[in-house]
């Protein structure tokens, strides 16, 4: 027995030694490579780079690399070469704080990320203490900017409530007075519906006559349709995804309820039109503005194809724009000084893949947002 134990101890010791040696060897190799470099500017990229949400985070790493390559080719930022350093948080708050601490201890001054709202929120206090400027391509949770707690936080995507505000404004512009708000009880759908209700309640011209959740996957929604009818609503605002939306619209139209149906970007999906068929005609849905005609966006996508031989993933244009905006701000500020960079972000316009943008006092990009689309002849067309 004792022999066995000592054998195990020996094995462990050997493994530990090997690991230590390996680490040292790597360090030496790094040291050798380092001296050749000139001045450099580190762009931190934090987000989910592994785990089940990696598909949302990895495009931003690629976007940062492409943006850095483009700027380095043009001589860098104030003569410094941009280097991208990625930190993985798997969209988990506890790992996000680790990533933020690592950025802080490495002396990174500008960070692109994080990807998920929850992880972003967890990491922000650390960045704030360390005077690091953070810009997310995808964290849409409204309080991140609107609470005013994090002046160092910016984003190149519109917050969740912007879509609801647009929806309500649009409903008012159609002259609608009574809205039945339906949602799918999910985080996204109910969140959107709640924002709509909040804006409608605050408005004297339009009122919410119904606010209810439906169960996704239920056999049919005829009772809800009858309820909408009984409520005397002159429009339906739906928060959720297309399977439920198409069922509700079909039910409404079959019952002869021809009032407008307005929804969100979960419904601005071609599958919705395919499934709801003729009943989809005339349905309104908000969705992100279309960037595909933007020259910088097209160029970035082409570069992505050339470099990685694949189509870019979600939030790629937002991430690419965020990298450009951050690097541009450093260029304008002349240094990575915290206040100067923040001032530059708020005051100077920059051409990005999501259009010519600058940031408002709260940190949201101006001009980035949503458009209203309507189904016409089996296609979503932007409502001008």
């Amino acid at each position, binding site marked *: 027995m004792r022999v066995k134990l000592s054998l195990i101890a020996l094995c462990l010791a050997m493994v530990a030694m090997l690991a230590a040696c390996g680490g040292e060897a790597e360090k030496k190799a790094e040291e050798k490579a380092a001296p050749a470099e000139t001045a450099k500017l580190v762009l931190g990229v934090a987000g989910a780079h592994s785990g089940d949400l990696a598909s949302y985070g990895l495009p931003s790493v690629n976007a940062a690399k492409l943006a850095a390559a483009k700027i380095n080719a043009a001589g860098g930022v104030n003569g410094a070469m941009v280097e991208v350093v990625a930190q993985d948080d798997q969209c988990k708050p506890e790992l996000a704080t680790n990533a933020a601490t690592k950025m802080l201890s490495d002396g990174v001054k500008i960070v692109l990320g994080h990807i998920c709202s929850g992880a972003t929120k967890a990491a922000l206090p650390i960045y704030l203490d360390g005077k690091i400027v953070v810009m997310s391509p995808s964290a849409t949770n409204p309080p991140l900017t609107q609470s005013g707690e994090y002046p160092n936080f910016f984003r190149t995507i519109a917050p969740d409530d912007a879509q609801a505000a647009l929806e309500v404004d649009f409903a008012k512009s159609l002259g609608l007075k009574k809205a039945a708000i339906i949602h799918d009880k999910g985080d996204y759908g109910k969140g959107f519906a709640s924002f709509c209700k909040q804006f409608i309640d605050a408005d004297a011209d339009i009122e919410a006559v119904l606010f209810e959740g439906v169960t996704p996957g239920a*056999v049919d929604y005829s009772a809800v349709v009858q309820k909408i009818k009984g409520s005397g609503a002159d429009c339906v605002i739906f928060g959720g995804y297309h399977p439920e939306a198409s*069922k509700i619209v079909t039910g409404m139209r079959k019952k002869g309820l021809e009032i407008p149906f307005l929804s969100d970007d979960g419904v601005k999906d071609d*599958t919705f039109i395919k499934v*709801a068929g003729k009943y989809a005609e005339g349905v309104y849905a908000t969705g992100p503005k279309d960037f595909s005609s933007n020259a910088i966006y097209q160029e970035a996508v082409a570069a992505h194809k050339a470099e990685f031989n694949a189509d870019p993933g979600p939030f790629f244009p937002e991430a690419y724009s965020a990298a450009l905006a951050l690097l541009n701000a450093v260029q304008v500020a002349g240094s990575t000084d915290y206040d100067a960079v923040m001032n530059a972000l708020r005051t100077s316009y920059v051409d990005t893949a999501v259009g010519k943008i600058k940031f408002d006092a709260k940190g949201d990009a101006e001009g980035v947002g949503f458009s209203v689309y309507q189904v016409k002849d089996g296609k979503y067309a932007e409502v001008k």
Partner: protein
Amino acid sequence: MDYFLELFLGGLTRGSIYALIALGYTMVYGIIELINFAHGEIYMIGAFTGLIVAGLLTMLGFPGISILAIAVVCAIIWAAAYGYTIEKVAYKPLRGAQRLSPLISAIGMSIFLQNYVMLSQTSDFLPFPELIPEFGFMEGLGSIMSSSELVIILATVAACIGLTLFIKFTKLGKAMRATAQNRKMAMLVGINVDMVISATFVIGSSLAAVGGVLIASHIGQINYFIGFIAGIKAFTAAVLGGIGSIPGAMLGALVLGLTEAFATGYVSSDYEDVFAFCLLVLILIFRPSGIMGKEKTQKV
């Protein structure tokens, strides 16, 4: 009053669908005391068969109403074939095993069929054509009830009456009742029990397939997952009415459908499932064997 009537008819429609599926659960349980969790998938397969056949016939230019009839018949045949095969593959080899084994086998079958359809078809939602045409004479009623709802309710009533008569008056029905009462005894008096069990699966699957095609045509979309929730609800209905009892399954399904409709209409659709399952719990507390279920003396 109109509002009440509308909710009532909506609940009736939903209850009818539950009834068509619940009959399969309750018959199988009545005969071999197995809860066939793959039954919801049979309903889904029926709907998919209907979709494929309807698409094919539309392409060949068949007239409207004949498409419905042929699609229903094909769905019945195909789903019945599936029901028969499932019983032979997943349950028959386990007939002598303890009760938990076939139950697990049923759950496995359900997951297998879901994934099989997902892989062979698609995981997307698919549009389902409106097979049930609008009736001219319904125009005045159109705001209260659509033609597809009427067809669903009538089809369910017809299926229930037909099934009851079948079980009461045919030789096979008699054999089914005998097997349900005591399988060993039935075997001893010369009833081909295997055949009876297969017949039960075939009949239950056919009813579910009819429900699948009708409801898919009513709501206009299907995907591989529709059988899961419909199956759970129908199973609840069967338990509510007293599992093993055919009139119980029909009553339980109607009670469940109406409860959901009224809970949505007068309280909120948020609480649709809450009310449905509260009702189940209450009934099971006060009548453990369900509304129409018989108290059974435990065999010792």
